[in-house]
Protein backbone atom coordinates (compact mmCIF):
# COMPACT_ATOMS: atom_id res chain seq x y z
CA UNK A 1 0.00 0.00 0.00
CA UNK A 2 1.41 3.34 -1.06
CA UNK A 3 0.40 5.52 1.88
CA UNK A 4 2.36 8.51 0.60
CA UNK A 5 0.37 8.51 -2.60
CA UNK A 6 -2.87 8.17 -0.69
CA UNK A 7 -2.00 11.07 1.60
CA UNK A 8 -1.03 13.11 -1.41
CA UNK A 9 -4.38 12.41 -3.08
CA UNK A 10 -6.32 13.31 0.03
CA UNK A 11 -4.32 16.52 0.36
CA UNK A 12 -4.91 17.32 -3.27
CA UNK A 13 -8.62 16.67 -2.82
CA UNK A 14 -8.83 18.86 0.25
CA UNK A 15 -6.90 21.71 -1.33
CA UNK A 16 -9.02 21.57 -4.44
CA UNK A 17 -12.20 21.60 -2.39
CA UNK A 18 -10.90 24.38 -0.16
CA UNK A 19 -10.11 26.58 -3.14
CA UNK A 20 -13.21 25.69 -5.11
CA UNK A 21 -15.62 26.25 -2.24
CA UNK A 22 -15.27 30.04 -2.26
CA UNK A 23 -14.93 30.07 -6.04
CA UNK A 24 -18.11 28.09 -6.53
CA UNK A 25 -19.96 30.19 -3.98
CA UNK A 26 -19.06 33.39 -5.78
CA UNK A 27 -19.43 32.13 -9.33
CA UNK A 28 -22.47 29.97 -8.59
CA UNK A 29 -24.21 32.81 -6.80
CA UNK A 30 -23.44 35.22 -9.60
CA UNK A 31 -24.73 32.82 -12.25
CA UNK A 32 -27.79 32.05 -10.16
CA UNK A 33 -28.89 35.65 -9.65
CA UNK A 34 -27.54 37.61 -12.59
CA UNK A 35 -29.64 38.05 -15.70
CA UNK A 36 -27.69 38.99 -18.80
CA UNK A 37 -27.65 38.04 -22.46
CA UNK A 38 -25.19 35.28 -23.13
CA UNK A 39 -25.59 33.73 -19.71
CA UNK A 40 -26.22 30.35 -21.36
CA UNK A 41 -22.86 30.75 -23.10
CA UNK A 42 -21.06 31.47 -19.83
CA UNK A 43 -22.66 28.43 -18.27
CA UNK A 44 -21.58 26.32 -21.24
CA UNK A 45 -18.06 27.73 -20.97
CA UNK A 46 -17.84 26.48 -17.40
CA UNK A 47 -18.55 22.96 -18.70
CA UNK A 48 -15.79 22.91 -21.30
CA UNK A 49 -12.98 21.50 -19.14
CA UNK A 50 -15.01 18.29 -19.20
CA UNK A 51 -15.27 17.73 -22.92
CA UNK A 52 -11.58 17.17 -23.68
CA UNK A 53 -9.96 13.94 -22.57
CA UNK A 54 -8.09 14.68 -19.34
CA UNK A 55 -4.72 13.71 -20.73
CA UNK A 56 -5.19 16.07 -23.65
CA UNK A 57 -6.53 18.83 -21.45
CA UNK A 58 -3.54 18.17 -19.22
CA UNK A 59 -1.22 18.40 -22.18
CA UNK A 60 -2.61 21.79 -23.13
CA UNK A 61 -2.34 22.89 -19.52
CA UNK A 62 1.23 21.69 -19.52
CA UNK A 63 1.91 23.96 -22.48
CA UNK A 64 -0.05 26.83 -20.92
CA UNK A 65 1.64 26.57 -17.54
CA UNK A 66 5.00 25.26 -18.70
CA UNK A 67 8.16 27.12 -17.98
CA UNK A 68 8.14 28.82 -21.37
CA UNK A 69 4.62 30.09 -20.91
CA UNK A 70 3.72 33.50 -19.45
CA UNK A 71 1.97 31.79 -16.55
CA UNK A 72 4.93 29.53 -15.94
CA UNK A 73 7.39 32.41 -16.13
CA UNK A 74 5.31 34.49 -13.78
CA UNK A 75 5.10 31.64 -11.31
CA UNK A 76 8.82 31.00 -11.52
CA UNK A 77 9.57 34.67 -10.93
CA UNK A 78 7.15 34.95 -8.05
CA UNK A 79 7.70 31.72 -6.16
CA UNK A 80 11.18 30.80 -7.28
CA UNK A 81 10.26 27.39 -8.67
CA UNK A 82 8.28 26.11 -11.60
CA UNK A 83 4.58 25.37 -11.52
CA UNK A 84 4.42 22.16 -13.51
CA UNK A 85 5.70 18.93 -11.98
CA UNK A 86 4.95 20.28 -8.51
CA UNK A 87 2.12 19.78 -6.04
CA UNK A 88 1.03 23.39 -6.56
CA UNK A 89 0.75 22.67 -10.26
CA UNK A 90 -1.51 19.70 -9.50
CA UNK A 91 -3.71 21.86 -7.31
CA UNK A 92 -4.03 24.53 -9.98
CA UNK A 93 -4.85 21.98 -12.68
CA UNK A 94 -7.26 20.14 -10.44
CA UNK A 95 -9.06 23.36 -9.56
CA UNK A 96 -9.50 24.23 -13.23
CA UNK A 97 -10.63 20.77 -14.22
CA UNK A 98 -13.16 20.55 -11.40
CA UNK A 99 -14.79 23.92 -12.12
CA UNK A 100 -17.85 22.32 -13.76
CA UNK A 101 -18.45 19.99 -10.83
CA UNK A 102 -18.18 22.81 -8.36
CA UNK A 103 -19.93 25.70 -10.07
CA UNK A 104 -22.97 24.04 -11.60
CA UNK A 105 -24.35 22.38 -8.46
CA UNK A 106 -23.54 25.50 -6.43
CA UNK A 107 -25.45 27.60 -8.94
CA UNK A 108 -28.47 25.32 -8.63
CA UNK A 109 -28.20 25.52 -4.87
CA UNK A 110 -28.44 29.31 -4.97
CA UNK A 111 -31.21 29.24 -7.54
CA UNK A 112 -33.30 27.10 -5.21
CA UNK A 113 -33.50 29.88 -2.61
CA UNK A 114 -36.86 31.63 -2.73
CA UNK A 115 -36.30 35.27 -3.78
CA UNK A 116 -38.53 36.46 -0.96
CA UNK A 117 -36.06 35.07 1.55
CA UNK A 118 -33.25 37.12 0.09
CA UNK A 119 -35.56 40.10 0.17
CA UNK A 120 -36.40 39.37 3.78
CA UNK A 121 -32.70 39.21 4.57
CA UNK A 122 -32.17 42.62 2.99
CA UNK A 123 -35.07 44.20 4.85
CA UNK A 124 -33.69 42.67 8.03
CA UNK A 125 -30.74 44.95 7.37
CA UNK A 126 -28.35 42.22 6.36
CA UNK A 127 -25.60 43.41 4.05
CA UNK A 128 -25.07 41.19 1.00
CA UNK A 129 -22.18 39.60 2.85
CA UNK A 130 -24.20 38.90 5.98
CA UNK A 131 -27.14 37.69 3.92
CA UNK A 132 -24.76 35.30 2.18
CA UNK A 133 -23.44 33.98 5.45
CA UNK A 134 -26.63 33.75 7.45
CA UNK A 135 -29.27 33.00 4.87
CA UNK A 136 -27.96 32.00 1.48
CA UNK A 137 -25.11 29.66 2.41
CA UNK A 138 -27.23 27.58 4.80
CA UNK A 139 -30.04 27.38 2.26
CA UNK A 140 -27.75 26.65 -0.71
CA UNK A 141 -25.87 24.15 1.40
CA UNK A 142 -27.16 20.97 -0.29
CA UNK A 143 -26.00 22.26 -3.66
CA UNK A 144 -22.62 23.27 -2.24
CA UNK A 145 -22.36 19.86 -0.60
CA UNK A 146 -22.88 18.17 -3.94
CA UNK A 147 -20.31 20.47 -5.50
CA UNK A 148 -17.73 19.65 -2.87
CA UNK A 149 -18.32 15.93 -2.77
CA UNK A 150 -18.25 15.60 -6.55
CA UNK A 151 -15.05 17.63 -6.64
CA UNK A 152 -13.39 15.65 -3.89
CA UNK A 153 -14.32 12.26 -5.29
CA UNK A 154 -13.37 13.27 -8.77
CA UNK A 155 -10.00 14.60 -7.64
CA UNK A 156 -9.19 11.30 -5.97
CA UNK A 157 -9.83 9.41 -9.18
CA UNK A 158 -8.36 11.94 -11.58
CA UNK A 159 -5.52 10.48 -13.51
CA UNK A 160 -4.88 12.03 -16.89
CA UNK A 161 -4.36 15.62 -15.86
CA UNK A 162 -2.47 14.78 -12.71
CA UNK A 163 -0.12 12.66 -14.73
CA UNK A 164 0.49 15.30 -17.39
CA UNK A 165 0.96 18.22 -15.04
CA UNK A 166 2.58 16.27 -12.25
CA UNK A 167 4.85 13.79 -13.98
CA UNK A 168 4.23 11.05 -11.42
CA UNK A 169 7.00 12.07 -9.03
CA UNK A 170 6.83 9.82 -5.96
CA UNK A 171 5.98 11.73 -2.80
CA UNK A 172 5.25 14.87 -4.72
CA UNK A 173 2.92 14.35 -7.62
CA UNK A 174 2.27 10.62 -7.72
CA UNK A 175 -1.24 10.36 -6.47
CA UNK A 176 -3.00 7.18 -5.43
CA UNK A 177 -4.76 7.11 -8.79
CA UNK A 178 -1.44 6.97 -10.59
CA UNK A 179 -0.07 4.44 -8.14
CA UNK A 180 -3.02 2.13 -8.66
CA UNK A 181 -2.76 2.55 -12.40
CA UNK A 182 0.92 1.64 -12.28
CA UNK A 183 0.14 -1.48 -10.27
CA UNK A 184 -2.43 -2.54 -12.84
CA UNK A 185 -0.05 -1.87 -15.71
CA UNK A 186 2.60 -3.89 -13.95
CA UNK A 187 0.08 -6.75 -13.58
CA UNK A 188 0.39 -6.54 -9.84
CA UNK A 189 -3.28 -7.37 -9.34
CA UNK A 190 -2.92 -7.98 -5.64
CA UNK A 191 -1.27 -4.61 -5.08
CA UNK A 192 -3.80 -2.83 -7.29
CA UNK A 193 -6.68 -4.61 -5.52
CA UNK A 194 -5.46 -3.67 -2.06
CA UNK A 195 -4.89 -0.05 -3.01
CA UNK A 196 -8.24 0.18 -4.74
CA UNK A 197 -9.98 -1.36 -1.77
CA UNK A 198 -8.30 1.03 0.66
CA UNK A 199 -9.07 4.02 -1.54
CA UNK A 200 -12.69 3.00 -1.95
CA UNK A 201 -13.08 2.32 1.75
CA UNK A 202 -11.56 5.62 2.78
CA UNK A 203 -13.58 7.55 0.20
CA UNK A 204 -16.75 5.79 1.22
CA UNK A 205 -16.17 6.60 4.87
CA UNK A 206 -15.20 10.19 4.20
CA UNK A 207 -18.18 10.86 1.96
CA UNK A 208 -20.65 9.12 4.25
CA UNK A 209 -19.39 11.13 7.22
CA UNK A 210 -19.56 14.29 5.16
CA UNK A 211 -23.20 13.61 4.34
CA UNK A 212 -24.05 12.79 7.91
CA UNK A 213 -22.35 15.91 9.20
CA UNK A 214 -23.47 18.15 6.39
CA UNK A 215 -27.00 18.64 7.66
CA UNK A 216 -25.53 19.67 10.98
CA UNK A 217 -22.96 22.01 9.46
CA UNK A 218 -25.61 23.52 7.22
CA UNK A 219 -27.68 24.28 10.27
CA UNK A 220 -24.80 25.56 12.34
CA UNK A 221 -23.86 28.05 9.65
CA UNK A 222 -27.08 29.85 10.51
Amino acid at each position, binding site marked *: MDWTALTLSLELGLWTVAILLPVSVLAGRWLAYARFPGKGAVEALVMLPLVLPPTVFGFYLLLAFGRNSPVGTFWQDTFGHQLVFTFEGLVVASVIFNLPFAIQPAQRGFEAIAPELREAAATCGMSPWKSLRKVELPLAWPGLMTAMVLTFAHTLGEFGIV*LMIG*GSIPGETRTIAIAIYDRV*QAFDMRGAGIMSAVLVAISFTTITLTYLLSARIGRRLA
Partner: protein
Amino acid sequence: EEPPVIAAASDLQFAVTEIAAAFTAETGQEVRLAFGSTGNFATQIREGAPFQLFMAADETFIAQLHAEGLTRDAGVPYAEGRIVVMAPHGSALKPDATLDNLARLLETGKLGKFAIANPDHAPYGLRAAEALRHRGLWDRIQPHLVLGENVSQTAQFALSGNADGGIIALSLALAPEVAARGDHALIPQDWHDPLLQRMVLLKDAGPVAEAFYGYMQSPPAREIMVRYGFVLPEEG
Protein backbone atom coordinates in the same frame (compact mmCIF):
# COMPACT_ATOMS: atom_id res chain seq x y z
CA GLU B 1 -16.74 -7.38 -43.67
CA GLU B 2 -14.94 -4.77 -41.59
CA PRO B 3 -11.17 -4.55 -41.93
CA PRO B 4 -9.29 -6.39 -39.18
CA VAL B 5 -8.12 -4.52 -36.10
CA ILE B 6 -4.43 -4.62 -35.32
CA ALA B 7 -3.26 -3.82 -31.82
CA ALA B 8 0.20 -2.25 -31.83
CA ALA B 9 2.49 -0.92 -29.11
CA SER B 10 2.56 2.84 -29.06
CA ASP B 11 6.21 3.05 -30.13
CA LEU B 12 5.03 1.76 -33.50
CA GLN B 13 2.74 4.80 -34.07
CA PHE B 14 4.67 6.24 -36.96
CA ALA B 15 6.28 3.20 -38.50
CA VAL B 16 3.24 0.96 -38.61
CA THR B 17 0.93 3.73 -39.78
CA GLU B 18 3.19 4.19 -42.75
CA ILE B 19 3.48 0.46 -43.35
CA ALA B 20 -0.30 0.08 -43.25
CA ALA B 21 -0.64 2.79 -45.88
CA ALA B 22 1.87 1.04 -48.06
CA PHE B 23 0.07 -2.25 -47.49
CA THR B 24 -3.22 -0.79 -48.60
CA ALA B 25 -1.65 0.84 -51.60
CA GLU B 26 -0.10 -2.42 -52.63
CA THR B 27 -2.87 -4.92 -51.87
CA GLY B 28 -6.01 -2.78 -51.87
CA GLN B 29 -6.83 -4.27 -48.48
CA GLU B 30 -7.34 -2.22 -45.37
CA VAL B 31 -6.50 -2.71 -41.73
CA ARG B 32 -7.61 -0.74 -38.68
CA LEU B 33 -4.89 0.21 -36.26
CA ALA B 34 -5.19 0.62 -32.51
CA PHE B 35 -2.11 1.91 -30.66
CA GLY B 36 -1.72 1.62 -26.95
CA SER B 37 0.02 0.07 -24.03
CA THR B 38 1.17 -3.49 -24.56
CA GLY B 39 -0.05 -4.51 -21.11
CA ASN B 40 -3.53 -3.15 -21.68
CA PHE B 41 -3.79 -4.98 -24.99
CA ALA B 42 -2.79 -8.25 -23.33
CA THR B 43 -5.54 -7.83 -20.76
CA GLN B 44 -8.07 -6.92 -23.41
CA ILE B 45 -7.14 -9.94 -25.51
CA ARG B 46 -7.77 -12.18 -22.50
CA GLU B 47 -11.23 -10.58 -22.18
CA GLY B 48 -12.09 -11.19 -25.79
CA ALA B 49 -10.90 -8.12 -27.65
CA PRO B 50 -11.51 -8.67 -31.37
CA PHE B 51 -7.92 -8.01 -32.42
CA GLN B 52 -6.50 -10.22 -35.13
CA LEU B 53 -2.87 -9.28 -34.86
CA PHE B 54 -0.98 -8.14 -31.80
CA MET B 55 2.36 -6.31 -32.10
CA ALA B 56 3.81 -6.12 -28.61
CA ALA B 57 6.60 -3.91 -27.34
CA ASP B 58 7.70 -6.71 -25.04
CA GLU B 59 7.75 -10.31 -26.13
CA THR B 60 7.02 -11.71 -22.68
CA PHE B 61 3.35 -10.80 -23.10
CA ILE B 62 3.20 -12.82 -26.29
CA ALA B 63 4.66 -15.79 -24.54
CA GLN B 64 2.01 -15.59 -21.81
CA LEU B 65 -0.87 -15.27 -24.26
CA HIS B 66 0.53 -18.20 -26.23
CA ALA B 67 0.73 -20.27 -23.09
CA GLU B 68 -2.92 -19.46 -22.42
CA GLY B 69 -3.83 -20.66 -25.87
CA LEU B 70 -5.09 -17.35 -27.12
CA THR B 71 -2.72 -17.05 -30.07
CA ARG B 72 -2.33 -19.03 -33.22
CA ASP B 73 1.36 -19.75 -32.50
CA ALA B 74 4.36 -18.26 -30.73
CA GLY B 75 4.57 -15.44 -33.26
CA VAL B 76 7.70 -13.90 -34.71
CA PRO B 77 10.04 -11.19 -33.49
CA TYR B 78 9.66 -8.18 -35.75
CA ALA B 79 12.07 -5.68 -34.32
CA GLU B 80 14.36 -4.69 -31.54
CA GLY B 81 13.83 -1.29 -29.97
CA ARG B 82 16.58 1.18 -29.19
CA ILE B 83 16.57 4.05 -26.75
CA VAL B 84 17.97 7.53 -27.10
CA VAL B 85 18.59 10.44 -24.83
CA MET B 86 16.82 13.45 -26.23
CA ALA B 87 16.66 17.13 -25.30
CA PRO B 88 14.59 19.93 -26.76
CA HIS B 89 16.23 22.80 -28.55
CA GLY B 90 17.63 25.31 -26.11
CA SER B 91 17.87 22.86 -23.27
CA ALA B 92 20.82 22.88 -20.88
CA LEU B 93 21.21 19.21 -21.76
CA LYS B 94 23.26 18.39 -24.83
CA PRO B 95 22.56 14.76 -25.72
CA ASP B 96 25.57 12.52 -26.14
CA ALA B 97 25.81 8.76 -26.49
CA THR B 98 27.72 8.32 -23.28
CA LEU B 99 25.48 10.54 -21.13
CA ASP B 100 28.51 12.58 -20.03
CA ASN B 101 26.66 15.83 -20.40
CA LEU B 102 23.80 14.50 -18.30
CA ALA B 103 26.29 13.41 -15.63
CA ARG B 104 27.92 16.83 -15.62
CA LEU B 105 24.63 18.65 -15.27
CA LEU B 106 23.78 16.37 -12.38
CA GLU B 107 27.05 17.09 -10.65
CA THR B 108 26.80 20.82 -11.09
CA GLY B 109 23.16 20.82 -10.00
CA LYS B 110 22.10 22.33 -13.32
CA LEU B 111 19.69 19.56 -14.28
CA GLY B 112 15.98 20.28 -14.07
CA LYS B 113 13.46 17.55 -14.71
CA PHE B 114 14.35 14.47 -16.71
CA ALA B 115 11.71 12.22 -18.23
CA ILE B 116 11.64 8.46 -18.62
CA ALA B 117 8.75 6.04 -19.03
CA ASN B 118 7.61 4.40 -15.82
CA PRO B 119 10.04 1.49 -15.36
CA ASP B 120 7.43 -0.38 -13.32
CA HIS B 121 5.49 -1.35 -16.39
CA ALA B 122 6.68 0.41 -19.54
CA PRO B 123 9.34 -1.63 -21.40
CA TYR B 124 11.10 1.52 -22.61
CA GLY B 125 11.12 2.84 -19.07
CA LEU B 126 12.74 -0.31 -17.77
CA ARG B 127 15.48 -0.13 -20.39
CA ALA B 128 16.05 3.54 -19.65
CA ALA B 129 16.49 2.70 -15.96
CA GLU B 130 18.96 -0.06 -16.85
CA ALA B 131 20.98 2.33 -18.96
CA LEU B 132 21.05 4.99 -16.23
CA ARG B 133 22.08 2.37 -13.72
CA HIS B 134 24.79 1.17 -16.05
CA ARG B 135 26.12 4.72 -16.31
CA GLY B 136 25.94 5.05 -12.51
CA LEU B 137 23.47 7.92 -12.58
CA TRP B 138 20.36 6.12 -11.34
CA ASP B 139 20.49 7.11 -7.70
CA ARG B 140 21.47 10.68 -8.23
CA ILE B 141 18.91 11.30 -10.95
CA GLN B 142 15.98 10.13 -8.83
CA PRO B 143 14.93 13.61 -7.60
CA HIS B 144 14.87 14.84 -11.20
CA LEU B 145 12.73 12.12 -12.72
CA VAL B 146 9.28 12.63 -14.11
CA LEU B 147 7.62 9.44 -15.24
CA GLY B 148 5.53 9.03 -18.34
CA GLU B 149 2.82 6.45 -18.51
CA ASN B 150 4.27 5.27 -21.77
CA VAL B 151 7.06 6.23 -24.05
CA SER B 152 4.99 8.69 -26.09
CA GLN B 153 3.98 10.63 -23.06
CA THR B 154 7.58 10.56 -21.92
CA ALA B 155 8.50 12.20 -25.17
CA GLN B 156 5.92 14.90 -24.52
CA PHE B 157 7.44 15.59 -21.12
CA ALA B 158 10.93 15.60 -22.55
CA LEU B 159 10.10 17.96 -25.39
CA SER B 160 7.43 20.27 -23.98
CA GLY B 161 10.18 22.43 -22.51
CA ASN B 162 9.27 21.60 -18.95
CA ALA B 163 11.96 18.97 -18.61
CA ASP B 164 15.54 19.26 -19.76
CA GLY B 165 15.22 16.04 -21.68
CA GLY B 166 14.53 12.36 -21.34
CA ILE B 167 15.12 8.88 -22.58
CA ILE B 168 12.70 7.77 -25.29
CA ALA B 169 12.45 5.28 -28.13
CA LEU B 170 14.61 5.84 -31.15
CA SER B 171 11.56 5.11 -33.29
CA LEU B 172 9.87 8.19 -31.83
CA ALA B 173 12.94 10.37 -31.99
CA LEU B 174 13.23 9.75 -35.71
CA ALA B 175 9.63 10.70 -36.45
CA PRO B 176 9.71 14.06 -38.23
CA GLU B 177 7.29 15.73 -35.75
CA VAL B 178 9.57 14.74 -32.87
CA ALA B 179 12.90 15.10 -34.57
CA ALA B 180 12.09 18.71 -35.33
CA ARG B 181 11.85 19.56 -31.66
CA GLY B 182 15.26 18.59 -30.45
CA ASP B 183 18.44 16.57 -30.67
CA HIS B 184 19.01 13.00 -29.66
CA ALA B 185 21.85 10.57 -29.16
CA LEU B 186 21.59 6.79 -29.34
CA ILE B 187 22.40 5.01 -26.10
CA PRO B 188 24.76 2.04 -26.55
CA GLN B 189 22.90 -1.22 -27.14
CA ASP B 190 24.80 -3.09 -24.47
CA TRP B 191 23.87 -0.71 -21.65
CA HIS B 192 20.50 -2.44 -21.35
CA ASP B 193 18.74 -5.71 -22.08
CA PRO B 194 17.43 -5.96 -25.60
CA LEU B 195 13.93 -4.67 -26.26
CA LEU B 196 12.66 -7.66 -28.14
CA GLN B 197 9.42 -6.93 -29.90
CA ARG B 198 7.28 -9.78 -31.14
CA MET B 199 4.01 -10.01 -33.03
CA VAL B 200 1.50 -12.79 -33.18
CA LEU B 201 -1.69 -13.68 -34.99
CA LEU B 202 -4.59 -14.24 -32.68
CA LYS B 203 -7.04 -17.11 -32.81
CA ASP B 204 -9.63 -15.30 -34.92
CA ALA B 205 -7.21 -13.86 -37.43
CA GLY B 206 -8.60 -13.65 -40.96
CA PRO B 207 -6.90 -13.54 -44.33
CA VAL B 208 -6.25 -9.80 -44.32
CA ALA B 209 -4.54 -9.92 -40.94
CA GLU B 210 -2.52 -12.86 -42.17
CA ALA B 211 -1.56 -10.88 -45.23
CA PHE B 212 -0.49 -7.91 -43.13
CA TYR B 213 1.45 -10.25 -40.83
CA GLY B 214 3.30 -11.42 -43.89
CA TYR B 215 3.71 -7.91 -45.23
CA MET B 216 5.34 -6.79 -42.00
CA GLN B 217 8.14 -9.26 -42.71
CA SER B 218 8.50 -8.20 -46.35
CA PRO B 219 11.27 -5.89 -47.56
CA PRO B 220 9.12 -2.77 -48.04
CA ALA B 221 7.91 -2.93 -44.45
CA ARG B 222 11.33 -3.74 -43.10
CA GLU B 223 12.70 -0.77 -44.96
CA ILE B 224 10.22 1.53 -43.23
CA MET B 225 10.97 -0.04 -39.85
CA VAL B 226 14.64 0.56 -40.32
CA ARG B 227 14.00 4.12 -41.29
CA TYR B 228 12.28 4.60 -37.92
CA GLY B 229 15.29 3.27 -36.10
CA PHE B 230 14.26 -0.28 -35.38
CA VAL B 231 16.90 -2.96 -35.48
CA LEU B 232 15.45 -5.89 -37.38
CA PRO B 233 15.78 -9.47 -36.09
CA GLU B 234 18.10 -10.86 -38.76
CA GLU B 235 20.46 -7.94 -38.42
CA GLY B 236 20.43 -8.47 -34.57
